């Protein structure tokens, strides 16, 4: 039962990294990213990584760490605004980039995990996103076909997990993590809190343990990208 539990991020990645691998990393901005697993992936030295993640981290944090070391060959994202090193490498053509509309990307990852190789969406019809993609009419409207995505290793951040890999996420730190957990040939999770099996109410498990091969408990810095506050006394 405890075969899924590993002590450190490094041990959790052991034997699973290789040059040219495809990795998914959960998170939206810096919220809900598998911080420790990303550091361990950097330290593994794997090169020419294809990274699927909604964003590319910031300089010096999150996937920004892997950009600094030039371990990423290609990014698939919906928005990469907050990263100077990313911009530099992209403009110097050192980095491939495939933009996906955020909802299309989320659905492609869910589809990959669900054994659905393709689906139709209205998103992107008539835009550059539709270039080269098959189309089909339904009820007189045009839709484009998008394909399912899977990866070699999915790196996931959850709030609480048990030793069987059953997971719960916290607030908007959920984002892409649950779908990515289903789309990895191997899924590795870092949780704030690792608990005994039976602790989490089975009605409220967000990700079933079947999707999780390895799990670690790790302390996250949880950096905030944009602190915004209101004044006390304000509405």
């Amino acid at each position: 039962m405890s075969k899924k539990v590993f002590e450190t991020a490094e041990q959790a990645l052991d034997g699973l990294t290789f040059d040219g691998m495809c990795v998914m990393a959960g998170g939206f901005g810096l919220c809900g990213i598998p911080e420790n697993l990303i550091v361990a992936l950097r330290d593994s030295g794997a090169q020419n990584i294809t990274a699927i993640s909604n964003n590319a981290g910031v300089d010096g944090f999150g996937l920004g760490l892997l950009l600094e070391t030039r371990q990423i060959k290609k990014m698939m994202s919906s928005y990469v605004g907050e990263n100077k090193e990313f911009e530099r490498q992209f403009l110097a053509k050192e980095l491939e980039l495939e933009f996906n509309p955020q909802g299309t990307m989320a659905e492609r990852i869910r589809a990959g995990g669900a054994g659905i190789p393709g689906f139709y969406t209205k998103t992107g019809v008539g835009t550059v996103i539709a270039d080269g993609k098959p189309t089909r009419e339904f009820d007189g409207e045009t839709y484009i076909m998008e394909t399912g995505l899977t990866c070699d290793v999915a790196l996931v951040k959850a709030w609480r997990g048990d030793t069987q890999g059953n997971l719960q996420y916290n607030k908007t730190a959920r984002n892409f993590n649950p779908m990515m957990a289903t789309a990895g040939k191997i899924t590795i999770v870092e949780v704030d809190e690792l608990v005994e099996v039976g602790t989490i109410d089975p009605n409220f498990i967000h990700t079933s343990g079947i999707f999780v091969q390895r799990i670690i408990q790790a302390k996250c810095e949880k950096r905030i990208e944009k602190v915004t506050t209101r004044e006390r006394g304000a509405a």
Partner: protein
Amino acid sequence: MARRAALELKDGYYANLGIGIPTLVANYIPDGVDVTLQSENGMLGMGPFPYEGEEDPDLINAGKQTITELRRSSYFNSADSFAMIRGGHIDLSILGAMEISENGDIANWMIPGKMVKGMGGAMDLVAGVKRCIVTMDHTNRAGASKFLKACTLPLTGLNCIAMVITDLGVFEREENDRFRVSELAPDVTLDEVKAKTEADIIYT
């Protein structure tokens, strides 16, 4: 513009507000109008910014700003969030734009030759939300119209904008799919709008 856009929020609506001017719309929701705001990173029932010291790194909006939750809030993953958007369950989206065309196309995500940050959820929103309203300046810094016969920038979505609110007025798309000037901003004349609008719209 934000104040005017807020009048489009009806009681019981579920709405998604884009970054920039649209975000400000939340401040002008009339009393007694109950609106639930969606944040496409996975939340319904977005609350105001937190008090200083109460920021939660696990709770941000689609603009990556720290926010708070309400009694009615619910969280979900990104696939479910965009299922909600794509499936037409969001009543209204208010978003910014670089260009709008007379047939309701919108361009708001890239300028060729400049660094492109990505479309984020914009393409999904304009394709999926029941009614999309744009707030934008009527002209660019050089004084050229942003309300065009056809967009010159790469599109975000085709034939999807129902209303445009600019510093000059309000432009509503009618059943014949053409935009009509429905309101003028204070001190703005129809002639001024005509002069600053390239799109072929109805002025009466």
